[in-house]
């Protein structure tokens, strides 16, 4: 299984990747900038994401907002920012491809002349609303922020949330936008992938036409910051408008595509995802200590985080849940997964990889995958080898990864409890930092 592609690098450093799929009369455009909240500085957080909003407010040669000319073309479009990268995409009818590339190239090359104080102030207000809606006003919504703050020291690029700290968002200024654009938004730090109803030759030629004249801009050096290990277990808590206490356990884990990453992904599934998992069976189905349980290997460019999350059932404590989780992880660390567990995990992974080939664009469509592999590995065609990472996983490899990460390393344990019920936090917890 592969995503067939051709890549060319323009003179200005822009990577162009094209994948032909003529099933439907649509083309996906995906533009990745290798910049995210990890490139921000303490005290100046939230900037990469705020900037993403400004990219939709018009550029020098089309200063009327980004949505109308594309909506008029029947496009769907969006963008997103995380710690490692910012991406933008359109899926357009074939006859609107020129227009999409014209607009994407105009905002890559000519954003600043159209950027006003007023647009900046409005989008900052929108982002503050986004933060309140999705974090402050959502039960457990601040857990990710508290975990990151406890896992990483204040100067580590993963210490702060991508949405930004509220004080920093208020302090952001238009000058910052200009500097940020100059530093990160240019062809040498970007790649464009097209997938769909277009030939490879035409695709490369079109991208060259619209982006080829833009100045390269400085090459952005890769960050090489390791996550300093925790000196010991850290227990923290905060109170929220929630009905039931929830326990979050987090460990530093391998970075994206690093040895052990795929093994821990499989371990997360067999530990806590779905009704077949060991923890669902014990915590939710049999002992009924918890209402839900899940686990993730969230791998990122600099380092990963392995998480287990469970919500306590009425009448039971987070400490009881913690004991079962510890014991269950210990079991996998001693004996590894069963052959049956690994077979089921691989059957699910295989299906997931095939299903990922169904869409040309949007978040996680083929164009997005080509760009992801290109941005992080320099290899757009990594799809098949990515799958092989899972197929090659062995029970012993999974056992060793679980031992090396979840047993040998200290963890962060966050308790989120109902307001006024600090007594429900894991014993020995200190107040979490949430900002």
């Amino acid at each position, binding site marked *: 299984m592969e995503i067939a592609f051709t890549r060319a690098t323009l003179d200005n450093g822009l990577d162009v990747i094209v994948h032909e799929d003529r099933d439907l009369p649509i083309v996906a455009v995906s533009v990745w900038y290798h910049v995210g909240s990890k490139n921000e500085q303490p005290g100046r957080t939230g900037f990469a994401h705020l900037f993403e909003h400004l990219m939709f407010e018009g550029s020098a040669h*089309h200063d009327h907002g980004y949505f109308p000319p594309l909506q008029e073309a029947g496009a769907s479009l969006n963008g997103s920012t995380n710690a490692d990268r910012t991406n933008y995409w359109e899926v357009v009818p074939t*006859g609107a491809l020129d227009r999409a590339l014209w607009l994407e190239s105009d905002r890559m090359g000519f954003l600043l002349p159209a950027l006003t104080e007023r647009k900046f102030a409005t989008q900052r207000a929108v982002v503050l609303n986004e933060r309140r809606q999705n974090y402050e006003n959502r039960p457990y919504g601040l857990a990710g922020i508290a975990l990151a703050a406890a896992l990483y020291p204040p100067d580590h690029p993963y210490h702060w949330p991508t949405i930004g700290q509220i004080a920093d968002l208020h302090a952001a200024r238009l000058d910052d936008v200009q500097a940020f654009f100059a530093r990160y938004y240019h062809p040498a730090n970007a790649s464009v992938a097209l997938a769909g109803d277009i030939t490879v030759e035409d695709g490369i030629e079109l991208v060259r036409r619209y982006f080829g004249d833009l100045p390269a801009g400085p090459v952005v050096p890769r960050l090489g910051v390791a996550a300093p290990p925790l000196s010991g277990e850290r227990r923290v808590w905060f109170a929220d408008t929630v009905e039931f206490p929830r326990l979050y356990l987090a460990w530093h884990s391998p970075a994206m595509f690093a040895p052990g990453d795929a093994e821990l992904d499989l371990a997360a599934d067999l530990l806590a995802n779905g009704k077949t998992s060991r923890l669902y069976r014990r915590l939710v189905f049999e002992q009924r200590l918890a209402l839900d349980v899940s686990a993730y290997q969230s791998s990122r460019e600099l380092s990963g985080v392995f998480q287990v999350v469970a919500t306590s059932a009425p009448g039971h404590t987070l400490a009881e849940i913690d004991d079962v989780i510890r014991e269950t992880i210990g079991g996998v660390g001693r004996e590894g997964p069963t052959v049956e567990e690994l077979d089921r995990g691989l059957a699910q992974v295989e299906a997931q990889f*095939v299903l990922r080939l169904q869409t040309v664009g949007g978040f996680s469509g083929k164009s997005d995958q080509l760009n992801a592999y290109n941005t992080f590995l320099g290899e757009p065609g990594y799809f098949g080898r990515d799958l092989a990472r899972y197929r090659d996983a062995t029970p012993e490899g999974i056992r060793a990864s679980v031992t090396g990460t979840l047993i040998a390393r200290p963890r962060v344990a966050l308790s989120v409890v109902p307001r006024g019920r600090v007594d429900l936090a894991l014993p020995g917890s200190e107040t979490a930092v949430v900002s």
Partner: protein
Amino acid sequence: MTVDRSRLPALVEDRAFRFPSVTRATVPGGPALRVVEQHDLPVLALLLVLPVGAADDGPGRSGLAAFTADLLDEGTGELSAIGVHEALARIGAQFDVDTGYDATVVTLVTLAKHRARALSLLADIVFRPRLALEDVERVRTLRVNRLRQLAAVPAAVADVAFARELFGAGPYGHLAIGTTASVEALGEPEARQFHARHYRPADATLVAAGDVDPAELATLAAEALGAVAMRGGPARDPGAASDEARAASGGTARVVLIDRPSAAQSEVRVGSVAAARATADYHALLVLNAALGGQFVSRINLNLRERRGVTYGARSGFEMRRRPGPFVVQASVQTSATAEAVHEVLDEIRGVRGDRPLTSDEIAMAQATLTRGYARSFETAEQLARAVAQQVVYGLADDYYDRFPEAVRAVDGEAVTAAARHWIDPACMSVVVVGDREAVAAPLEALGKGVDVVSAEV
């Protein structure tokens, strides 16, 4: 070659899209089959569509349809609750049960090579669930606790209150999940009875899309469903979807406030009972909604988000169901702008009714949004299967998707304004706000519709 940046590139005419053909078949005494072939990837999406949903819960039993549906995968035949999911995992299946108001859809997506096992599992899960007492009680406890959690989610609290304001004790007056009180009263007998009555093979439709041969699928379905197909008798006719007049009690038209002390934002709903899926105004309402609040570039979103910056996003929608469903505008807005947002929403609705009717540019934009790029709605096997399921649930014509673009393009300004005047009237609209009473009650009073403070009833 230099790019001409003085103007945007013109749009080139789209290549026409046609919905793939749908092959029909039947299993004797069993469900109708509809199959869409798509052979580019070895994927198969199976949907079992049952014409029963939350609207059939019955008085005092809200949540029963969803509760029953949730119990389907808790054991069947030799397989325990865990065993069912081990079997699904072994074929890499993505499994989902969705209970809407008008239908319940059980979805299984997997690789085509697993088709025989997928079909037999699906048939067993849907038509032969164990519904064992112990499982029923375990699942009920989980659902009651889930409801207790939802009581802390402002959007859920607002949705519950809004449904009640519009539909009272009617079939659409509650969320599919039900309420804590109603679900606590549900047990094994209710689930068994509901399943026996509503999960009849002859009433169901099996939709398949993907890398599959229709004749082979019919054979496999007959094998999988053979035993259950004997039970249950002939298909019931659910009756044509109705365009009945809006209920006389169509909404309370009041402002309701649910206190959430020191909430970071206010969750807002504004709307009224509107049209059924079968309405002749269907396409006009889609165009109206796209321009009013259904897309990013729409009056309500541009006003509240891009001009005022008081929300991360606001959107409107007509939920057109078998019976007349709601029109709703929803947004989470900053506390200090709560009354302002409600006022602006009502003002934008008044506008499209005639003060400031939609311009021809706005209508053209809405039509383009709905019709150009239409093909991207039909990329995956699951999307194709869901499109066919819509045809089944709402009795849409076979060529419905092929004719959709021309029907939308035929809508003109006059039709849109007339539809707005008929279906959305600010004077009939209910307003629900979940927010900090201390901060928002007085400004809401100033809107002149009064404010009733009520408690959340999730």
